[in-house]
């Protein structure tokens, strides 16, 4: 790890000034700082200043999670534990609370923040290893493509096959979330515009401009929503595939559905085909439900070691739908 300064600017404006000023050449924001420290330890980043953001309060910020009319608000600094335990979210957008509560470990959730979770970098083991100068780091090859790609993407056109690491992002994608920013030309960005696929820029996953700071997130209630993740290990492990679903129900019949998958693509993966197929499905008709969920893998192109995700993804979707409806799932 190289020496660096640690800054605690008094407000967003001062933070922006530090990010864009001349005093430092490689400034880096931190929320909880876990992903930042991982990068420092691995020798991937060598910032000259690390800027803490957890104390910054945007106008109107009160509690880490709040609700005003039909708008739910999550502050950038809200910890994952706070999100997972929020009464507001558990009632009005359970997919968000459950997605975040399922991530990592209690220790990580106590420190990790909403903004940090959305903007954390991928876990591809070549990306994380100093020795592999892959495409994402400016090199000439994707080592995963011909290498060990069991945990990589089944969707997307390449040329990088990461899966986006955030559990929170897919849940926000089905709740019309908006990411609020300070310091750039725009005040906000819909969550679905926050990320780009590797063909649109391989070095980064998100569309923030240098100097832009996430202040908070707003979203709409989705009281009938659910989340399901399939993991190898039930403690401290990354999902192999997961899904978030938000429904509108007429008794046990699905009037409309929005589903987003995670751990299968370089960005949160919306599944409009499944949304359409779920319309009109009776939740008690498991055959019909499974058939609709099978649409989840349309367009998937697995790599050499991850075809198993084709079996898993429809299962994750089906169980997320059932969870949303408050039905029992098998495990």
């Amino acid at each position, binding site marked *: *790890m*190289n020496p660096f300064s640690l800054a605690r600017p008094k407000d967003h404006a001062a933070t922006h000034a530090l990010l864009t000023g001349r005093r430092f050449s490689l400034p880096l924001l931190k929320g909880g700082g876990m992903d930042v420290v991982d990068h420092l330890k691995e*020798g991937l980043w060598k910032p000259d200043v690390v800027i803490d953001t957890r104390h910054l309060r945007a106008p109107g910020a009160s509690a880490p999670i709040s609700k005003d009319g039909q708008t739910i608000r999550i502050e950038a600094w809200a910890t994952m534990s706070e999100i997972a335990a929020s009464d507001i979210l558990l009632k009005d957008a359970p997919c968000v609370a459950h997605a975040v509560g399922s991530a990592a*470990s209690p220790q990580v959730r106590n420190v990790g923040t909403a903004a940090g979770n959305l903007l954390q970098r991928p*876990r591809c*083991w*070549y990306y994380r*290893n100093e*020795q*592999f100068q892959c495409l994402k780091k400016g090199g000439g090859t994707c*080592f995963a493509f*011909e*290498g*060990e790609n*069991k945990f990589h993407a089944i969707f997307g056109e390449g040329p990088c096959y990461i899966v986006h690491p955030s559990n929170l992002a897919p849940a926000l994608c089905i709740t019309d979330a908006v990411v609020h920013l300070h310091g750039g030309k725009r005040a906000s960005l819909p969550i679905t515009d926050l990320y780009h696929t590797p063909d649109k820029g391989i070095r980064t996953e998100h569309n923030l401009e240098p100097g832009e700071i996430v202040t908070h997130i707003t979203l709409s209630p989705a009281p009938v929503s659910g989340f399901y993740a*399939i*993991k*190898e*290990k*039930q*403690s*401290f*492990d990354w999902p*192999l595939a997961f899904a978030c679903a938000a429904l509108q129900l007429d008794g046990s019949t699905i009037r409309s559905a929005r589903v987003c998958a995670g751990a299968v693509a370089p960005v949160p993966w919306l599944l409009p085909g499944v949304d359409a197929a779920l319309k009109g499905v009776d939740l008690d008709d498991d055959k019909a439900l499974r058939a609709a969920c099978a649409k989840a893998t349309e367009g998937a192109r697995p790599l050499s*070691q*991850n075809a*198993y995700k084709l*079996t*898993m993804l429809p*299962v*994750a979707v089906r169980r997320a739908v059932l969870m949303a409806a408050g039905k029992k799932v*098998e*495990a």
Partner: protein
Amino acid sequence: MRRDDIPYSMPTTNRPRNAGSAISDDASRLDAVAKVTGQAIYSRDRYLPNSLFAGFIFCPYGKAKLESHASEAAKKIPGVVEVEISGREGQYHGHTVGHVLAESPEALRRGLAAVACKWVREPVRTKIRDGELAEPSPNAKTSDILAKADHVLEAEYETQVQTHCCLEPHGATIDHKGESATCYISTQGTFAATDGLSDAIGLPRSKYEVICEYIGGGFGSKLNGAGKEGVLAARLSAGHNRPVYLFRTREEDQTDTGNRPSGLARVKIGFTKDGTILGGLVQKFGGVGVGRGGGGMSFPSGRYNLGDIQSDHDDVRFNGGAPRPFRAPGHPQGAFCEELMLDEIATKAGVDPLALRLNLENSGARKEMLELGAEIVGWKNRAKTGSQAGVIRRGFGIGSAAWGSGQGRTDCEVVINRDGSIEARTGTQDIGTGQRTTMAIMTAEAIGVPLAFVGVRIGSSNLPVGPGSGGSVTTPSTAPVMAAAAARAREQLLTTIANLNSADASEFDVKGGEILRAGKPFMTWAQACAKIGGEQIVGRAKQGEGERGKGHSDGVQFVDLRVDTDTGVVYVDRVIAVQSCGRVICRKTAESQIIGGVIQGLSYALFENQVLDRNAGSMLNANMESYKILGPNDMPHIEPVLWTKGATGVRSLGEPPVVPTAGAVACAVFNAIGTPVRSIPLTPDKVLAALAGGGA
């Protein structure tokens, strides 16, 4: 919190089945509080004043030539003391080719980075199947058996590389003081660690001490003399006349400090319609990386009557780190193959796997254990293999183990001081089994005083010689000798009292910390000890004295699990572990040893796996995040059952509980889904492939 603030004894009410099975039914680990409060000083905690810090330069690829380096530039980094390049080629990730010595850990890291090695990669082999594997060559007798059999099972069983993952990495702090030296080494053998040390340190064995008070994980890989780390730290400390601290990083620990080697077993076994096994061919390959030897698998184990087996073995080399002993070397991998093979034969023959084992078992004790375990787990609830429908399917499986009882060189001393305090001493170390606790219990019992009277000193080569912790010999070696030494000290004390009272020592006794004469209270322990002439009484005993454990330690395990057939995820619900170890000294540490073995076995069965990049040979999960180890949510209910029937002496317990688990899990998964998964770890992708008929 001080140790004295918590009671020595805490009631254990949870496992009624084990009540009364041990010499001490309720003693807690003596150093429990020291360990959980951070007061216990591990070798890696030894930051000495004026210390230098050393680290290795190593190859990050499976095979590469060192084209260039900037060691001259690295020497100029402030705080860097020395840079040495000693090799030009790496044969595996972690292969060391030099070192850096610096004034601080930070300067060391900067120095290592500044060396900026340029490696030119070469093609690699990363697994057994990359090698040229001999074709099976059954001899005439084997061919004959296979030709005559009603059925022949042909299968290939595969196991992965498991790394030791010691929480405290391998390493040493060596403090050379000119005329003498103190060596703090994270070692499983305070005496074995002196191997190779005298030369490196430039002092005779009489001039230095090896100290290892606590060790943060020792599963076999720290039984390697002073290790590369100790030898280099010693040489550097001698050269610079300053303490040198050298501990491996996690990446190095995962790649260059040994592993449980991978294995591949191809079997062709002939059996009759009713499940009588006639014999056949077991062709095995051990994946030893760059190692020479060490890839053996205990298969067939000898526990079952498998007829005439022709067993062939080859070690296969590739570009990976070499194996080192790992808790029951060769056994868990062998047991996985053997147990799953038995269940496959049983299923084919239409025989219940328990009945098959009762029939094939060579040990009467294990047969009884099988019957007990079956009753506890509820074997009667087991559905026939392949008979279940539904998303969630339940499975039961069996595994077994046997372990001989060796002894290592052991001298013990028991000191009784005039102030009444007692000290039990031998130089051996505690790899976590509860060495201090068992020594104190043996001493207290032999003398007749409460446990709280006894203090323990271990972990130093200046103490009487004690065994290295390998082969599960530490407790069987020390416990009888400790008791003999304590009995001798007691005898001396009673003789002193008898002489002062002009009586015969046989009139006196010690019970509950009181001196009795003719069975009646005579004086307190303190009063008696105050009469000791000279400073203290020392009772000594050596290997061979005391009641030695005879025969085998046996174990059987039953696993009860569920498989989610939609996702392939395996959820283990219960493990019943029936285990013998002769006379149980301390119930809690014995139970904890069994539970720990089961946890490590489950982790091996379900998760752990060293992933080498097939093209570069680098270990991609050289950390403890993507190298997956069982966590709290993956913990089943584990019930250790202490089997003490006919117990004499103290026998091995360290390794056997890790042996049966993976085999039992594999059998249970087969029972649940009806298709064997012949490769561990049993990850969801493999289970789904088996369910889809993609084979094992």
